[in-house]
């Protein structure tokens, strides 16, 4: 008996039992759909993160002071001097202080993220103003109480009115708004746009931080990033006398770390989804076993008129394969639809489709058909025709 014939028989039998066939497929449909949706969401959020890291500029180097040694400390002016001496490789340095603060405008209050930095931050981090101006060096030097606000804050505490020239209270101190930052995220609460930027010197006083523990350094060109890192490492090692109290890293390294994290996330999500595929497979095995019992007489008739074990085996196996194959295709459509609705509709994460994962989940669903179809098919094939014919 040829495979085409067995395939035709399988289709006939599946169509002859539409309701049950669909219920059998459901496990595979949900499993494959879940794998595709989970991987898409994981990869979509990865893309989100890497895009925003890449958006910071390719020349960026970060310095983090992690140790708590009060005797030795690097200061902004020391680094500033180093940058001036090595202007061929380092073009700018910005100190950064981050803190969570309470803001108040009129009687409207809110929580936001404070960033204290200097004028160079505009070019170092590619941060731009929508309206007004960025920080200037005299703001830092003369400790001007000026602030730039993010769009989330504009809608949140200024309730959409023009904040330029208005007063905002940050942890009780009054600041004048001189600029509105360009929207970089989605302008929502808790996003990157929910922020207020003030001069670093003012921030040090406001947050009672004598020591600045974080710097953003801009290398002159992408090619000088390594040389600049080398220089910074040497310089900081000389100050701290060890290499454990600080970290110098750049975006390439960050991306690498991120991709490990998100890669793991993808696998974890896909793994969870794969479990549902296996459960679907067990469902198929159950239904196929029921089907073997139900069709004992049919098997008996087929064997009596000359079907060999192999023919029966192939018939049931192909039936399982066709069920899982159709289920796999419907699962792919289902997964893509979920991604379209969730990612495309809500616009939180980009729509990403991973062809390798789609192909793989389809292949896995077929493999499930073979593996879980094998036992019922084998059981059917070795039925004794006399007993099978007597079966009512």
């Amino acid at each position: 008996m040829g495979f085409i014939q067995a395939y035709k028989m399988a289709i006939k039998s599946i169509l002859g039992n539409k309701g049950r066939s669909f219920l059998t497929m459901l496990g595979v449909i949900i499993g494959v759909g879940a794998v595709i949706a989970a991987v898409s969401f994981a990869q979509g959020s990865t893309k989100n993160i890497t895009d925003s890291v890449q958006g910071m500029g390719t020349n960026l180097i970060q310095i983090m002071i992690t140790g708590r040694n009060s005797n030795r400390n690097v200061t902004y002016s020391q680094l500033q001097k180093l940058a001036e001496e090595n202007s061929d490789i380092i073009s700018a340095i910005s100190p950064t202080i981050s803190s969570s603060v309470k803001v108040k405008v009129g009687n409207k209050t809110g929580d936001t993220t404070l960033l204290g930095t200097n004028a160079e931050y505009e070019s170092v981090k590619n941060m731009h103003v929508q309206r007004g101006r960025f920080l200037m060096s005299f703001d830092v030097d003369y400790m001007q109480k000026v602030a730039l606000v993010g769009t989330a804050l504009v809608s949140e505490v200024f309730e959409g009115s023009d904040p330029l020239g208005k007063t905002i209270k940050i942890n009780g101190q009054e600041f004048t708004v001189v600029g509105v930052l360009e929207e970089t995220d989605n302008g929502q609460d808790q996003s990157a746009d929910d922020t207020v930027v003030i001069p670093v010197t003012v921030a040090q006083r406001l947050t009672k931080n004598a020591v600045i523990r974080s710097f953003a350094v801009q290398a002159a060109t992408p090619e000088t990033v390594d040389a600049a890192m080398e220089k910074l490492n040497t310089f900081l090692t000389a100050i701290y006398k060890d290499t454990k109290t600080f970290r110098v890293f750049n975006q390439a390294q960050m991306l690498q770390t991120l991709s490990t994290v998100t890669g793991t996330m993808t696998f974890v999500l896909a793994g969870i989804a794969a479990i549902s595929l296996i459960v679907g497979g067990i469902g198929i095995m159950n239904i196929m076993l029921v089907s073997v019992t139900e069709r004992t007489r049919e098997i008996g008739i087929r064997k009596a008129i000359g079907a060999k074990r192999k023919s029966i085996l192939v018939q049931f196996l192909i039936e399982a394969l066709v069920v899982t194959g159709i289920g796999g295709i419907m699962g792919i459509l289902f997964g893509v639809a979920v991604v379209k609705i969730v990612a495309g509709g809500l616009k939180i994460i980009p729509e990403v489709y991973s062809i390798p994962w789609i192909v793989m989940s389809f292949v896995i669903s077929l493999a499930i058909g073979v593996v879980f179809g094998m036992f019922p098919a084998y059981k059917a094939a070795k039925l004794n025709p006399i007993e099978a014919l007597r079966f009512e």
Partner: protein
Amino acid sequence: MAAQGNIPWMKGWGERVIEISNMCKKYTMGNNVVNALNNISLSIRQHEFVAITGPSGSGKSTLMNMLGCLDTPTSGTYILDGKEVSKLNDDELAHIRNYKIGFIFQGFNLLQKLTAIENVELPLIYQGVHAKERHKKAKAALESVGLGERLDHKPSELSGGQQQRVAIARALVSAPPIILADEPTGNLDTKSGVEIMKILKELHSKGNTIILITHDNNVALQSQRIIRIQDGEVIEDREVS
């Protein structure tokens, strides 16, 4: 064929298509061993129309399973169409059933989800016959039993007599050397039963070898030869006068 001359009524008949000698079949039921067939020997020639009869429990069903290659004997030999089949395995038996035996069952045993012609095509599917030729042969077989107009009817849309005719067409389609009919009229009303017997007799007159298993004496009397079984033994083997 030395023995041919010894039995007068066999003179001039065809080759032996079935030759069984000293066939035994034992079943174990709990602690008891049941001798379903006890040292049976018989032979059937080409173009014979034989009825095997006996009361229920006589062993005729067991004999029918042996003749139909659905089961293998505990001991003894069975030569079917020149081939020893008593020691074959499952798949070899399936092959023999496919090519050498046409089954007609009491309960018709058609596949309910397939149409008449698809049911008739089944044995050819397992022979690997090409679709076009299969269709042609199946159509011819159905026409020969008078169902040329009902090719695409499902069994549920046919009467009992018509269903049995589909089963006969299925048994005929691969032109096997023997046709084995197990109580073919058992589930039918008298009129349909008569029709089916008429078809079987027609098949016989066209040269088919037919073995009929029945407990109904009137049916058995329509054959040429009656083999009576009781307690697993042949108690009578006579020509119908």
